[in-house]
């Protein structure tokens, strides 16, 4: 049997980008609380109520990313911070390899496929963070490849429920995967009456798979919350902004798809079913922008050359791709490439600078922090404190959803110096403030000459006097 597809090129691309990703230091604000939750799950079992804060202590928390957190923690437990870098590099390599593979399924010319995949790879760069969402992106890239492949071999769809099962335990972005899979199966159901049972079964099993998580039906709460009312106060949940680098790349991809669609031959409904819903989701928040880029890479790989040809002809530039005889390397070459890419990524991750970059965090305050509840901290530093100062429970942190309601409202009143800020401090029994020096709360506390325990250019720790 003749091989028609080789993984060598995707693996080479994945290995290169995976190794390159090790140059970035660890330091995502949410990494620390994910690690803490992973450690808690491994050592004490899955916690369903909050144990890290003093503002929502004992109240329910989301468990939708438990598997992702455990995997990140196990990587840390095995190799320390270098374990985190290695895992991140492996995930980046997987994303890049899957994007390149999907592009290659649509375009047999390797260079064209890789060039078409580059915008998607560039956009995923903004999601190369040490969090379960990176695993969600791997799952999404895998799903796109799977759905593309299923157009000719529908039986591949039976892998979708397994993928969704794993995804639902890793990260809440599984909801997008399920929706895209359902739409693609719907299109297949219309186009191929002979595989309707298969398409229906794949969707039904995928829906059932989402319930096989510790969260049960409530797994959908997190997913729908993010989608229907993204918390815009958080930068990554903000609206895609084309004046930012990631937003510019996103706009470039959307325009590339638009212009390509205008100038190349019409496609089938399947392409619309894959691209249009994902584009809408990508427009909802900055963190979702890579999804459309990943989904559209195969389309661009297949059709962009024709569109470029039309433009070149209009400009009277002779632009014809040379004739190409595809050569597919053997399985042995693929395996050897995989081994080399894996070794390169692991080696690069192992020798990388492992220590996290604590520049954005108040590392200098740790020795001065009072133990026990009562410290009101900046939102961005909550995860850092959970990991580095476990004796001092936080007021708020990047988990966000447990705080939605009174705690978040009180926090906003405090940091923005709302009219009832003193009442909030008294009611909450705050003993200290750990805030950024330029925040209105810090400025006011300094005006009022509240005692300062520790400070630097990036943080200040005040003792709250008795306000009663």
């Amino acid at each position: 049997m003749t091989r028609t597809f080789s993984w060598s090129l995707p693996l080479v691309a994945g290995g290169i980008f995976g190794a390159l990703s090790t140059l970035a230091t660890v330091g995502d604000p949410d990494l620390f609380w994910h690690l803490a939750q992973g450690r808690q799950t491994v050592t004490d079992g899955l916690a369903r109520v909050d144990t890290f804060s003093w503002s929502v202590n004992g109240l329910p928390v989301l468990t939708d990313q438990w598997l992702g957190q455990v995997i990140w923690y196990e990587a840390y437990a095995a190799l320390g911070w270098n374990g985190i870098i290695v895992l991140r590099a492996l995930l980046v390599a997987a994303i890049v390899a899957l994007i390149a593979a999907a592009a290659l399924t649509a375009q047999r010319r390797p260079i064209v496929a890789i060039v078409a995949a580059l915008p998607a790879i560039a956009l995923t760069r903004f999601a190369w963070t040490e969090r379960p969402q990176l695993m969600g992106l791997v799952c999404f890239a895998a799903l796109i490849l799977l759905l593309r492949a299923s157009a000719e071999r529908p039986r591949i769809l039976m892998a979708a429920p397994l993928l969704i099962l794993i995804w639902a335990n890793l990260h809440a972005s599984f909801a997008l995967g399920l929706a895209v899979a359902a739409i693609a199966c719907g299109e297949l159901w219309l186009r191929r009456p002979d595989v309707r049972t298969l398409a229906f079964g794949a969707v039904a099993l995928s829906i059932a798979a989402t319930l096989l998580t510790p969260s049960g039906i409530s797994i959908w709460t997190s997913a729908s919350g993010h989608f229907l009312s993204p918390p815009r106060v958080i930068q990554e949940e903000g609206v895609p902004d084309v004046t930012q680098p990631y937003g510019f790349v996103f706009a470039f991809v959307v325009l590339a798809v638009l212009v390509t669609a205008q100038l190349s031959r019409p496609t089938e409904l399947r392409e619309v079913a894959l691209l249009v819903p994902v584009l809408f989701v990508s427009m909802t928040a900055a963190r979702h922008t890579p999804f459309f880029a990943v989904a559209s890479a195969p389309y661009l790989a297949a059709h962009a050359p024709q569109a470029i040809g039309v433009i070149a002809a209009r400009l009277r530039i002779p632009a014809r791709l040379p004739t190409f005889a595809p050569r597919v390397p053997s399985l042995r070459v693929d395996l050897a490439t995989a081994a080399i890419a894996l070794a390169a990524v692991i080696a690069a991750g192992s020798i990388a600078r492992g220590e996290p970059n604590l520049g954005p965090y108040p590392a200098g305050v740790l020795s001065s922090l009072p133990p026990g509840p009562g410290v009101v901290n900046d939102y961005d530093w909550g995860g850092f404190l959970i990991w580095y100062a476990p004796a001092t429970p936080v007021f708020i942190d990047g988990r966000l959803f447990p705080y939605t309601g009174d705690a978040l409202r009180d926090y906003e009143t405090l940091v923005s110096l709302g009219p009832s800020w003193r009442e909030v401090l008294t009611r909450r029994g705050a003993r200290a403030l750990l805030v950024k020096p330029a925040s209105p709360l810090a400025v006011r506390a300094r005006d009022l000459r509240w005692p300062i325990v520790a400070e630097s250019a990036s943080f200040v720790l005040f003792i709250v006097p008795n306000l009663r």
Partner: protein
Amino acid sequence: MAAASRPLAASLAANAYPLAVASAVFIIAVGLPSTDSDTYWQLATGQWMLGHREFLRQDIFSSTVAGTHFGIGEWLGQVAFAGSFAAAGWAGIAILRATLIAISSFFLVRLARRGRTPWWISLPLVVGALLVSKITWTDRPQLFTLALFPALLELLLSLPVGFSRRLLVLPPLFFVWTNLHGGYLLGLVVVAAVLTNGRRGLPLAATAIVCVVVTFLNPAPLELAGAAREDFLHPPRFLTEFLPPDVVTPAGALFAGFVLLVIGTTLLRGGSLREAMLLAPLLYLAFTAQRQMLFFCFAATAFVGARLATLVRWRAFELPAPVRLPVALVLVIAALASVTSAPMHPDERAYPSGALDALRVDNGVLLNEYDWGGYLIFNLPERPVFIDGRYVPYLGGVLEDYRALVGLRPGWRDLLDRYKVSELLLRPERPLAVALREDGWRVRSSDTAGRWIVLARP
């Protein structure tokens, strides 16, 4: 006479549908009261120019940038609004607004009907595009761009190959547009996009060059272009209309619907180089700020309808031709009658109207809320404002100082002293208002609903 009336009747019959929609939109738009804070300073500027018969080239409204150069790129638009106000008060503003939106709707329908798109496809597209544009139905010179953009687009897309007498309309259109509003730059982009298609020949190219030349015939050549470039490259994100499109808002969701429709239908049916050249830059522009979304949606209606008609083959009921014109004429008459429903007063609920009496007594430099600056310029001319919606004159440091003050950033006390602020008109929840109340500043006046507070130095 009879021979002359026949083409008119034919033209009216052919435009019955656009006329009917434009009339219906006029009836809706004329009943809306003015709400935008920028209307006030635009009106004040126009009134000054009308009263003094000269251009207002420097700031006379603020205490912070008094005497500094101020752009006059929209002078004709400001004069037009001031003239309408002088003629009929706030009702005149509403009528001018409704007229411009109706013109926009008229050409939008003509765009949407290109390729004989059936009404049940074109009408939802027009309604959708108008709803997206609703966020810009503010009484400002930008309304002229709202009207002229679809008119230009319709004219360009219906041009025959080679010379056409309609080309002669373009230079005067750009001459007027340049003096009305900075959106003329977008018009030039559209002309360039149509020109690159190359099939319109030398006449359009020559006309385009003349259009570029006439845009320099205004009292401040390049001034508007500079401002527009800044808005494009560095949109002031603290202003809502300059925020990127948000698909979880109604207008943003509609915009997203247009994007998805364009891409979805193009994937299935293909498009053209001309469409790509037009829509791609407009889509990028739309991504930069909410206020730009409408241009993409307007242009999209010219192409999406015809493609949708090929995808959904359904023959809906069409109003017989002899009935269309009477229906349109009835709506036109209704629109003319609706002029009487134009509101005589603006909607001031968002403004501190109750604070005006307290503020009439001059107590030194007043620090006011950004959004209320225009309102104060118009309603309390005796008190210079600290800042207002013109924002460009304040970019040299005043805007940053204002934000540092109201946000209680480090150094706020020094700023308060440097500007010799002795009175505040702010929202009570502003950190500065909270801090100064605690520090003993006197509450001279406050809103029972908690929307504003006037504080004075103790």
